[in-house]
């Protein structure tokens, strides 16, 4: 009897354990299919030809308008790098022909509305956000700022001061230093992709420069609108026509951009050593990546390779080898730029490690990248990367503002209409051979440029162990 009970108990425990093992195996879970058709974005045109993307969304009483400016800081005069940043700030704060800066600030803030303008290398975005009840008032101010800014001197002075202060502080953060000297070396400091602002350049920016740049960038031909929020389609078109419909194009002459000339490292890695008295080194190493086109055949294999090399936060090879297995860094990973269409973008791997592990860590990073070009990735790694990209793809559609903005940018670049619809299909069809091929094509470790910011006195080995060294004193 006792024995029987024991056996029973044993069986019970056995079953229980089995059950619990079953219960905690994530692989065994099944998931229902997600049924989701993102809302369709409509395309319309204003009376003066400006294209408008629009999507009604009545969930919340909000209104958002994004204006795409189809040119970016590549068009800044090289001696005045930072000009578009002052321009953006100056448009928002410098008043218009009919509205004073104070009036605009008061009006916007009493509506809890905001207007922001920002430029990257290849385009700019101006954004208006208001509660839907304040839409018309917000549009009126926004239109005025976009069309008739006057850049009042006392406000421009504040923008310049802030930019100068940013420059004065730019050697405080090691990544700020790295992100200045790496592109400057790759493209040349006197080239649009390699330039960065200087105090003298900022001081030389005049009101005339701003008016000229404004005319160059802000005219109907050069703009696309995207609106989302709690409005009625016909009403918004009518309002946009009221505020923007009479805006006409100016004659402008676009400067021509210089041709791209890659730097020659002569088949040996170049080391840019930037001394800074810190107990931790910042290492950034990379090379030219892709000059993107909408149908670039390397894009999808690269998308997968990036994930595996260092872009997936916790499961990438760089993370695993440098941080998880060895504790050599807290911040480690890679970034592969695929958002440049005029000049090739850059890619790089990065890590921050204690001084006495600098060269060891750099060598390990090189080794991880070399492995990427030597051997095909495993099926398991491929699946993980693909599933991660495919399953998180739905997040690209989590707000109507995002959906509309995305559509506008894809059309601007000239992507096919079914690009997003076929995106996950393309990812699924990537093969290990393709991943290997793009790794071999882009991870040019023979010519890699290695930026090291730190105190060489405490390095484990001289930085010259990594390649031909150039010492730079940051300005």
């Amino acid at each position, binding site marked *: 009897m006792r024995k029987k009970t024991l056996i029973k108990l044993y069986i019970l425990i056995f079953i229980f354990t089995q059950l619990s093992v079953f219960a905690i195996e*994530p692989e065994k879970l099944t998931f229902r299919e997600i049924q989701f058709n993102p809302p369709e974005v409509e395309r319309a045109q204003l009376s003066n030809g400006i294209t408008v993307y629009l999507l009604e969304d009545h969930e919340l009483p909000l209104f958002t308008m994004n204006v795409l400016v189809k040119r970016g800081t590549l068009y800044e005069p090289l001696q005045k790098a930072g000009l578009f940043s002052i321009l953006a700030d100056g448009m928002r704060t410098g008043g218009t022909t009919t509205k004073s800066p104070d009036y605009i600030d008061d009006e916007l803030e009493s509506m809890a509305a905001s207007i922001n303008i920002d430029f990257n290398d290849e385009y700019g975005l101006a954004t208006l956000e208001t509660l839907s009840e304040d839409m018309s008032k917000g549009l009126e101010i926004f239109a005025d700022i976009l069309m008739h800014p006057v850049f009042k001197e006392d406000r421009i002075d504040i923008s310049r001061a802030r930019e100068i202060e940013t420059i004065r502080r730019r050697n405080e*953060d090691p990544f700020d230093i790295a992100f200045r000297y790496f592109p400057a070396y790759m493209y040349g400091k006197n080239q649009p992709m390699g330039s*960065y602002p200087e105090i003298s350049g900022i001081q030389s920016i005049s009101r005339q420069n701003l008016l000229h740049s404004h005319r160059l960038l802000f005219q109907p031909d050069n703009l696309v609108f995207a609106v989302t929020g709690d409005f009625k389609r016909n009403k918004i078109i009518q309002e946009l026509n009221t505020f923007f419909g009479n805006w006409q194009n100016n004659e402008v002459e676009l400067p021509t951009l210089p041709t791209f000339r890659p730097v020659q490292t002569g088949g040996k890695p170049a080391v840019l050593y930037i001394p800074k008295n810190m107990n931790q080194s910042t290492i950034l190493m990379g090379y030219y990546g892709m000059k993107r086109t909408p149908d670039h055949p390397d894009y999808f294999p690269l998308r997968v390779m990036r994930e595996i090399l260092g872009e997936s936060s*916790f499961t990438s090879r760089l993370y695993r080898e440098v941080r*998880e297995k060895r504790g050599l860094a807290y911040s480690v990973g890679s970034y592969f730029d695929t958002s440049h269409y005029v000049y090739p973008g850059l890619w790089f791997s990065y890590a921050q490690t204690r001084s006495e592990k600098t060269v060891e860590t750099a060598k390990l990073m090189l080794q991880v990248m070399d492995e990427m070009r030597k051997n095909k990735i495993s099926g398991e790694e491929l699946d993980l990367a693909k599933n991660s990209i495919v399953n998180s793809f739905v997040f690209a559609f989590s707000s109507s503002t995002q959906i509309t903005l995305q559509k506008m940018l894809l059309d601007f670049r000239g992507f096919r209409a079914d690009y997003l619809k076929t995106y996950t299909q393309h990812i699924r069809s990537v093969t290990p051979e393709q991943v290997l091929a793009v790794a071999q094509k882009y991870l040019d470790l023979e010519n890699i440029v290695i930026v090291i910011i730190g105190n060489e006195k405490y390095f484990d080995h001289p930085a010259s162990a990594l390649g031909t060294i150039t010492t730079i004193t940051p300005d």
Partner: protein
Amino acid sequence: MAVFRCKIYGQHRCKDFYVRRSYKILTAFLFLLFIPVFTYAQNLEDRIIERRLDNGIKVLMMERHNAPVVALYILFKAGSADETTDTIGTAHMLEHMLFKGTDTIGTRDYNQERPILEEIDKTGEALDRERAKGDSANQTRIKDLEEKLKRLQAEESALVIHGQYESYYMKNGARGFNASTAKDYTLYTVELPSNKIELWALLESDRLKNFVLREFYTERKAVLEERRMRVDTDPFGKLREQFLLAAFDHHPYGIPTIGFPEDIRRISVKKARNFFKTHYTPDNCVIIMVGDIDTTEDFLLVKKYFGDISGGPAPVTEITPLPPQKEEQRITVELDAEPMVLIGFHKPAVQNPDNYALDMISGILSSGRTSRLYNNLVQTGIAVSVSASNGFPGEKYDNLFVLSAIPRPPHTVEDAEQALYRELDRLKKNPVEPEEFERVLKQIDAQYIRSLASNSGMARQIAYFEGTAGSWKYAITWKQKMHSVTPQDIMRVAQKYFSKNNRTVSSLVKKTAD
């Protein structure tokens, strides 16, 4: 909110890459610019469903169906303020360690791994103890222990499946998978497609029930790197650390959440486990789900996975309030960096009625280009950037109202400091105009509506109020009280707290070559 954003910091950096001309100075202060956002009281009460499991875990749910995604946050009402002097840094270290898997995830064979882990713990502790002796330490013993530890770690590493826990999330499409440790609470976050909620329930409940603190000493090195990154190589990080140390003598709010290197080097597996056992109790746990959920079905799912978690009652951390400050404290931090100033005034915890007026003051002083500090310091050329923030570095206990400024040359930190005091004096002497109140209240309303547009934003807000004020419902009271703050309240509160004797001033001055 001195939150340590863990793990994916590097990725945040990358996004900065092509924003080379960004306003770094302004963003450096964003952490100070917290304004609570809940307002539409009835509305929020209608939308958030609060339930409790039998074991005490609170479950807060909010449905939003515009996309098939969901934010899933788990909050523990325990943070670095709950540490004791011998466990500094443990809350944060534990947070890191809970990503290392469980007895079934992250291991090839736990039965083989377990005895090695026990040996590692013992060896690591012995090594820490010996090293702690400093000059009188036995170097041969240190060397032996180091070698032993290295050997054991290699043995263990062979049994570990690296990144397995994380990979379950990643391959199922997770976003924002991360965690952060603050003074008042610890938060575990993830966003998933809404058909994967069960996966989250399984993985999270599994780590709470069966976590394994593997590769502890390797991760401790990564945490030391994190400290070097956040403090040693960041002038603002250093200034902030010195500022808090000066303002909070003998108080956990003065201690850096990550700990000093000496603290980090003394955190053991045992301490981490004890912290878990004491503070990660069901009573202290809040589960927050915002997005495409079904409040009935998904509550049952939570119950199924989290219902059998047991644990004692939530501990009460007793922190002796600081004695009233008797005189102004000033510190100067000399660094190879450009000047800035932080000024903190002691004031009571979030639950104190004066807090509403202080929140209102922070809005009046520094929200937007029409605010007083912007008008009178930035527009006039005294400073390039300014901020005022109520509730730093935590809010559960008595904390600080903080002003900061970056002077615009040729103005000095002293000029900026005096200009800030002039603004405080105005608050003490003259009643605030009704339009200033209205503007702040309208901004609060708008921010609330905007926060509803993001699952993760809303989840984070709920977590913040749970973690600091004890309940998300504080938000409702807050909104009502904000509307009833009067000009007299502002004057009274300004007079009460913004006195010379009650302030700590810390200035960063540029180191001169020696």
